[in-house]
């Protein structure tokens, strides 16, 4: 039986500020935001922007120098931090599991500290392991180093949730695992959150992760200034400024590949012959043209075989036996990403492009792809520069106006 769990609490940050002695600029400058109960909010931003510091101020691992934190309306800025942290789950990048304790002991830590009875703690450990998808019987007595990175991370999340806190803070929890495991863990977290409705604050520098997990995303710039705090859709379709669009656009090259189709780029023309071409002519063609390889088409003009210069000799002039069969083609409607995939898996790094009825229309290879992506990015860059120029001009005008205004005040 699963205990009914505590749903999330609201978190309000009010003018939260962190200054470090000896630094003129605050590390986190006057951050205010409201996080609704049961909501997953992602802090995303470049490294060093203070997103982690902001997160750690919520459970006061870092004491704020100014401002206020309210959880469920209660001001927690002054209460005992140890008591506060037991109500807030905390999961970190390296999983933070204690290597000298077993999985069960790690998970049991917080419930035991909060004074749960032994049988209740034992049941809870089993329940938590079950919840994060690990077989309690198998994993109960293992030590962290006997687990894979992904399993460690799951146990880390189980430990964070063990005492059923309304709030869960996650500091780049999936940053150190391989991409496939990360994908799984993200899916798991989404599933967990659907069941638990905790208030989750999640820090990452990976915008794709933010889009995938967040109900709302706070894009932070330096000193934790909020550049935009909105739903993923709104941020994607309507970035507030060039900083946000720059951040969204990180990895633009690959995203571009998804948005562009093979039909839109220039494909290569390959020397072709058909199966009906007399052998003699094919020989001559191979010898005469500068190429090493030609594409043999079948009677309906579809790519059939790749023929290299030596192939015919080796097959003693039999077209039926010579060459390698074309096993993968892309249509003109395929995205460049599909084409890249096909090119990468092809052992000679080229793939035939076919029209609607499967007829040959051209060939793409690495070179074609690289060239077209360069062109696309170049176009993007020009666009961005124009936008930037406009922005700078607008700002210059604004500053001009402000300075004029100031000057006037001083004189007055």
């Amino acid at each position, binding site marked *: 039986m699963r205990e009914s769990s505590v749903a999330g609490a609201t978190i309000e940050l009010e003018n939260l500020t962190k200054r470090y002695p000896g630094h003129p600029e605050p590390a986190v400058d006057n951050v205010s935001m409201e996080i609704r109960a049961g909501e997953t909010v992602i802090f995303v931003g470049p490294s060093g922007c203070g997103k982690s510091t902001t997160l750690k101020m919520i459970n006061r691992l870092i004491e704020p120098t100014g401002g206020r934190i309210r959880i469920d309306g209660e001001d927690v800025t002054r209460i005992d931090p140890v008591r506060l942290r037991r109500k807030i*789950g*905390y999961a970190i990048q390296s999983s*933070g599991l*204690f*290597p000298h304790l077993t999985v069960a002991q790690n998970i049991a830590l917080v419930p035991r500290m909060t004074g749960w009875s032994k049988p209740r703690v034992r049941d809870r450990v089993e329940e938590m392991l079950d919840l994060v998808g690990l077989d309690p019987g198998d994993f109960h007595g293992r030590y962290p180093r006997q687990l894979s990175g992904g399993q460690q991370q799951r146990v880390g999340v189980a430990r964070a949730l063990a005492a059923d806190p309304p709030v869960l803070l996650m500091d780049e929890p999936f940053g150190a695992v391989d991409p496939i495991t990360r994908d799984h863990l993200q899916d798991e977290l989404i599933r967990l959150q659907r069941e638990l409705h905790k208030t989750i604050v999640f820090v990452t520098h990976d915008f794709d992760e933010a889009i995938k997990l967040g109900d709302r995303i706070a894009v932070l710039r330096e000193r934790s200034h909020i550049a935009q705090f909105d739903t993923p859709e709104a941020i994607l379709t309507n970035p507030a400024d060039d900083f946000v669009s720059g951040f969204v656009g990180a990895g633009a090259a690959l995203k571009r590949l998804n948005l562009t189709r093979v039909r839109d780029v220039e494909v290569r023309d390959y020397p072709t012959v058909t199966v009906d071409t007399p052998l003699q002519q094919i020989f001559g063609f191979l010898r005469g043209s500068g190429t090493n390889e030609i594409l043999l088409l079948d009677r309906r003009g579809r790519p059939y075989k790749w023929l290299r210069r030596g192939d015919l000799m080796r097959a003693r002039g039999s077209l039926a036996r010579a060459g390698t069969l074309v096993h993968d083609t892309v249509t003109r409607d395929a995205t460049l990403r599909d084409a890249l995939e096909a090119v990468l898996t092809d052992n000679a790094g080229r793939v035939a492009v076919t029209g609607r009825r499967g007829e040959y229309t051209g060939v793409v290879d690495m070179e074609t792809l690289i060239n077209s992506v360069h062109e696309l990015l170049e176009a993007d860059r020009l666009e961005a520069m124009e936008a930037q120029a406009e922005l700078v001009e607008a700002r210059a005008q604004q500053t001009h106006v402000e300075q004029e205004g100031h000057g006037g005040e001083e004189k007055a």
Partner: protein
Amino acid sequence: MNFWEYLGSRHQQLLADAFQHASAVFQCMVLATLIGVLVGVVTYRTEWAGHLATLTTSTILTVPSLALIGLLIPVVGLGVAPTVIALTLYGLLPIVRNAIVGLRGVDPDLVDAARGIGMSRPARLLRVELPLAWPPILTGIRVATQMLMGIAAVAAYASGPGLGNEIFRGLASLGSKNALNQVLAGTLGIVILALLFDAGYVLLGRLTIPRGIRA
């Protein structure tokens, strides 16, 4: 009388001395461990305090043992007191140093995690930091024990207990027929004790270092 005959005739005296030797070293090690770990715990979080602790204890170690015991006699008298004080002081350095190194070597992410899940400072120390620092501390204890085994022999100079008496007696009567046997018996006894203690520590390590962090 050859060495074996000597051992045969004196085994009772030798065993008693060996037992006292072991007992003195053991008790001083317990004391040194308690003090050493405490000093480590108090000083590891500040750079200068850690330095000061290591420096003080290593300064003690540079004082020749005979001189230290000799200096202690006018203050605390003969017998057990100067032995215990000297041995404990000498045992401190490896323990203090390894305690500081071990505690500082605990992954800061883990300490951060311990704080983050709401462990108080004492809980962090007892449940996370000390268990993780225990292997290096145990190594320090082993090294200190080896050292004290030899130094304890010098304690006989202040009428202290142990196999040192055998050695000093032999040295004092050099030339007599049993002198060499006495020195040899005392020295070998100490070596054997040291090996036994070391085996004991290996066992202790097996029993006290959690499987999750055993090398």
